[in-house]
């Protein structure tokens, strides 16, 4: 059967299990778009900006665990995807971005809408391809999906010149896939597992630190099982939230710059730190030399480069988080039998519980204004935690991380590594497409939302009932907070006084708009807004100069926190 490049692309996407394709047409991909209507089982979602397409595919991938897919044209279409690709790269999100390219004969000639997107995205993709031979197209797509989802996942880009899309060849789908230069290690080393079990046996003050890798490898259950069996308290990075139920007694809270007092102190005091699927970002460690100074550090990661990159490690464990945690469980079960861990760790658990009790996450309530933290608490209360929450980047992101009790993996979608403002709203659209019946809430700052606010058009056009809750302080809140604390209150360029009427703006798009400016209205109006079947902006006017605490100032040790 002879297919065109466009047909091969769409057929291959379907074989890879793609159900939703986010995209934006243009000259170089016209042939692909010409073909799309003939593949109704591949749902194409027309976004309003290519950045939105990548973030939506990313949100879809994070919420489902599947590979997200998007399609854009050459030149500006391609460059507009870069921020989204870099966002996915930093957080190890599996996605495949297909970009159009000028015809092969024109490449290098500065043709109209030509850009070397393979060169541009080389450092922010797991791998990328320029397809120059149509006979390699199917294999390239197969490899791209395989790379995106295996090992440490990440974005893969395929650049498709227009003549390749138009050319015809026999379609041969490569069922089996293997690459001699790419063999990720899944199975952990048995000796290292044994060493970990030995350290667990000796430890007086053990702590689990879980990152996004635990979610990625579907290891949340194994983590909970192990932590509860061994009675070891758990903290998560921002990317790890949801990997352990925040309602559990062993939960310490999030770690890091805006981490909970108990979590940061527990890490600093620990004598054994078992880290899984985390790469020790500087926002997690604080001052490296003072990070878990007395602990034996076990580091589980599927990417060997993560190990010993930022933090010295005593027991390196290269492998899949889930297999590793299960391996540790099996060895501990055989080695320690029915040892009474609750009794052995009673002193330590008491200490961390005291920390939790003495300095819980807190804020000062106010009679005159709505506190942003209160909004997040109310959202949690209203949804019972049963929602997919996305965030933009800034104060509202940290408050969401702190005050929404995430209990399940894949329920918090947030740009952790790159910190991309403008991520949350399109990501929510992706998540809602994957789960049409779930409550999907994008918590946004008034500044962040305006970076990709045009995607409201996408939400309305596709009847996606995404709820955008704007914590509106008319500032770039987090930058303002730093200016207040470290730059003598010099609020340079952080005021967002001139802003649209978000309610009217929502209505202008055909969505619903709500404004909440008094505490009494918070619960009822949020409740009403969450129950509407339409997309909605909920503009919550909050205390303008509220700060996120605890805060570990840049370069300080984790236990040097500014508290409320």
């Amino acid at each position, binding site marked *: 059967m002879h297919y065109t490049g466009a047909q091969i692309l769409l057929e291959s996407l379907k074989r890879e299990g793609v159900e939703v394709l986010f995209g934006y047409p243009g000259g170089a991909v016209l042939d692909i778009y010409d073909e799309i209507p003939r593949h109704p089982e591949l749902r194409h979602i027309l976004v309003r900006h290519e950045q939105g397409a990548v973030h939506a595919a990313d949100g879809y991938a994070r919420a489902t665990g599947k590979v997200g897919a998007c399609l854009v044209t050459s030149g500006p279409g391609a460059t507009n995807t870069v921020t989204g690709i870099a966002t996915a790269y930093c957080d190890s999100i599996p996605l495949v971005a297909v970009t159009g390219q000028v015809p092969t004969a024109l490449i290098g000639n500065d043709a109209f809408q030509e850009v070397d997107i393979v060169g541009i995205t*080389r450092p922010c993709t*797991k791998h990328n391809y320029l397809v120059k031979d149509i006979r390699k197209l199917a294999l390239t797509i197969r490899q791209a999906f395989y790379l995106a989802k295996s090992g440490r996942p990440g974005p893969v880009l395929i650049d498709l010149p227009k003549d390749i899309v138009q050319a015809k060849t026999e379609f041969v789908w490569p069922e089996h896939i293997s690459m001699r*230069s790419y063999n990720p290690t899944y199975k952990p080393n048995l000796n290292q597992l044994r060493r970990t079990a030995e350290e667990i046996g000796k430890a007086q003050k053990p702590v689990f630190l879980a990152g996004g890798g635990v979610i990625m490898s579907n290891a949340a259950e194994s983590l909970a099982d192990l932590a509860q069996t061994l009675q070891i308290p758990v903290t998560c990075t921002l990317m790890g939230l949801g990997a352990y139920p925040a309602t559990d007694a062993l939960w310490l809270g999030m770690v890091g710059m805006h981490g909970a007092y108990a979590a940061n102190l527990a890490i600093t005091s620990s004598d054994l730190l078992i880290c899984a699927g985390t790469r020790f970002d500087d926002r997690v460690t604080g001052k490296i030399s003072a990070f878990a100074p007395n602990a034996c550090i076990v580091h589980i990661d599927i*990417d060997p*480069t993560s190990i010993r990159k930022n933090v010295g490690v005593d027991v390196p464990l290269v492998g899949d988080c889930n297999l590793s945690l299960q391996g540790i469980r099996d060895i501990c079960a055989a080695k320690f039998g029915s040892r009474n861990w609750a009794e052995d760790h009673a002193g330590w658990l008491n200490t961390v519980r005291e920390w939790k009790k003495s300095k819980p996450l807190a804020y000062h309530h106010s009679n005159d204004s709505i506190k942003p933290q209160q909004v997040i608490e109310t959202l949690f209360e209203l949804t019972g935690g049963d929602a997919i929450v996305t965030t933009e980047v800034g104060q509202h992101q940290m408050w969401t991380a702190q005050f929404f009790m995430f209990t399940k993996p894949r329920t918090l979608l947030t740009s952790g590594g790159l910190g991309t403002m403008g991520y949350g709203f399109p990501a929510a659209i992706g998540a809602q497409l994957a789960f049409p019946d779930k409550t999907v809430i994008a918590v946004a700052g008034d500044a962040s939302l305006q970076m990709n606010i045009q995607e409201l058009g996408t939400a309305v056009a596709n009847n996606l009932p995404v709820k955008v809750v704007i914590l509106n302080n008319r500032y770039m809140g987090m930058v303002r907070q730093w200016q207040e604390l470290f730059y003598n209150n010099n609020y340079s360029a952080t005021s967002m006084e001139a802003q649209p009427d978000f309610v009217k703006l929502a209505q202008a798009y055909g969505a619903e708009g709500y404004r909440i400016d008094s505490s009494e209205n918070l619960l009822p109006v949020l409740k009403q807004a969450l129950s509407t079947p339409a997309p909605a902006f909920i503009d919550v006017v909050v205390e303008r100069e509220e700060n996120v605490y605890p805060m570990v100032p840049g370069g300080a040790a984790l236990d040097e926190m500014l508290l409320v």
Partner: protein
Amino acid sequence: MQRHVISVLVENEPGVLSRVVGLFSGRGFNIHSLNVAPTLEEGVSHMTITTFGDSVILEQIMKQLHKIVTVIKVMDYTETHAVEREMMFVKVQAEGPMRGEILRTVEIFRCKVIDVSHNEMIIEATGDYEKLEAIISLLQRFGIKELARTGSVAMRRSKKQTD
């Protein structure tokens, strides 16, 4: 800061050099010399990279190189028995009485004179890094006008029967 010789086998495809070089520049590693050429096996190229760095940096370089999808194999030759050679041309000022002394130096180091004019010679030298450094330092007092070096190539020595 130790000198390291790293040998990398890569899929010979467009952009692979860019990936390797981009890794070094993007992560702030330093490339002292770089040599790339195809191997006997079709589709596979061999790179020899020399770099300076402590053991932590070297470990990251090795791992990061290995992480590149088109990199097949990475070996560090620093601590192993390996042979290493590079080649260079030195155009040296060679007038009157100096010529004899230059030729003696050439002989001691088993170099070759491959071009000669009234006042210059081009010397071809092959050897490991230290040897070439020694030749340069000796020739410097005559006046080096131009220098071209290939960068090192390296290969692991065969196992000896007594090993």
